[in-house]
C-alpha cells in the first residue's frame, strides 16, 4: 500500500533498530505530499512524513513521525518516535520518544517515555500501564545529560535558613 520513493531520505532517518529482531522488518513510508484522512492499520513499520487525520494502529510495529509529519490522530504502536507534530494521544507498547524537533499535544501512555531536550509536549504522561507493576523508567536522552552535568552530584547551596509554618 505504501510506496517508498527514491527521493526520500535514507533509512538512517528511520527509528533506531534497537528493539528489532535480528531480521529487519519492512519499513513503509508516507511521503511529505501525502494526506490521509481516515484510519491507518498494518503490520509493518511506518514512517510518516506527510499528514494524517484519523487513527494510526500499528500496535506490533514501530511508528515514526518524521520532521515534516503532521498528525491529528491517536497513534498506537510498539515504539513511537515523534520528530514532527502530533495532536492526539500516543500509546506505545514499548516506548514513546519525542525527539528534539517533536511537538506533541495529547497524552502519552507507555512504560517508557523519553522527552529529548528541546521537544515540546503538553498533556499527561502515564508510564504505568494497567496490569503492569512499577514503571520502567527511561532516563532522559543523551541530550539531557542529567547525571553528566558537572557538580550535579555535589552538595548544592546550603540552606541559609529553613522554616516551617505553622
Amino acid at each position, binding site marked *: 500500500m505504501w510506496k517508498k520513493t527514491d527521493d526520500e531520505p535514507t533509512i538512517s532517518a528511520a527509528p533506531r533498530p534497537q528493539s528489532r529482531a535480528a531480521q529487519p522488518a519492512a519499513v513503509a513510508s508516507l511521503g511529505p505530499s501525502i494526506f490521509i484522512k481516515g484510519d491507518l492499520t498494518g503490520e509493518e513499520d511506518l514512517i510518516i512524513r506527510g499528514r494524517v487525520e484519523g487513527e494510526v494502529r500499528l500496535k506490533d510495529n514501530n511508528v515514526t513521525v518524521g520532521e515534516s509529519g503532521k498528525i491529528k490522530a491517536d497513534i498506537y504502536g510498539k515504539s513511537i518516535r515523534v520528530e514532527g507534530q502530533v495532536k492526539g494521544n500516543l500509546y506505545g507498547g514499548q516506548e514513546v520518544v519525542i525527539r528534539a524537533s517533536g511537538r506533541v499535544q495529547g497524552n502519552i501512555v507507555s512504560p517508557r517515555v*523519553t522527552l529529548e531536550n528541546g521537544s515540546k*509536549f*503538553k498533556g499527561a504522561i502515564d508510564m504505568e500501564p494497567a496490569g503492569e507493576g512499577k*514503571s520502567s523508567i527511561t532516563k532522559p536522552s543523551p541530550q539531557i545529560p*542529567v547525571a553528566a552535568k*558537572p*557538580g550535579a552530584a555535589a*552538595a548544592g547551596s546550603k*540552606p541559609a*535558613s529553613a522554616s516551617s509554618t505553622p
Partner: protein
Amino acid sequence: MGPSSPSSPATGEETSHHQSLALGLLVRRLSDGRRRRVLDLGPAIGANVAFFASLSCRVHIADLHQSLFPPGGPRVRSEARALEDILDRDLPPAEPFELILTWDLFNYLEPKNIAAVAQRLKAFSQVGTSLLALISTRKELPDRPTRFEVHDSQHLIYDVESPLLRPAPRYKEPELSRALAGFEVESSFLLRNGIQEYLFSYSGC
C-alpha cells in the same frame, strides 16, 4: 551546557543547581507508593517526568512557560486577557491533582495575575493539594523563567535560558498568601542562592 556551580541562577550562568529542601519534603510525602497526579506548569523535561513516574505519579504538563514567554516573542505576556486565553487553552480539564509544580513562574507575574492563576488552580485542587513555588529573593533574575530539572530527591538543576536580567519582584509571604487565596503556606525554605522555596497546601477555603 556551560559551567556549573552551586550559585545563583540570576548570575547569568547557564547551568546551576541547588539543594531543594522542599523537594525533599515532597519526596518523603510521595514515597508511600500511592498513585498520585502531578500538574506541572513548567515545560516538559524528561528527567522530571521520569522522577515523578518513579514515585508512581502521573504527570500532566501544561507548559505555561512556553505560552507566556514564547521564544522570540514579548518577554512577558502578562495582560489579563492573554493570560486567561492561555489558561483556557493550556490547562487540562478539571480534575484534582495532589501536587502542582509552579517552579519560578510567579516571579514573572504581577500579583493580580498570580491570583488569576490561583483561581484557576482551585479547579485542580482538593484539600491538601501541595503547590510548589520558587520565589527569587534577589534584586534581579533572568528575564525568562528557568528550566528546573530534578536531579535527585534533594537537588534541582536549573538551566538559565537567557543571559538578560530583569528586576525581581521579591514577593514576600504575605503578598503570595494574598494572591494565592485558598492556598496556605505549609513550609518555606530560604536558601542562600537567592531562592525561597514555598510549599503551599490547598485548604479548600
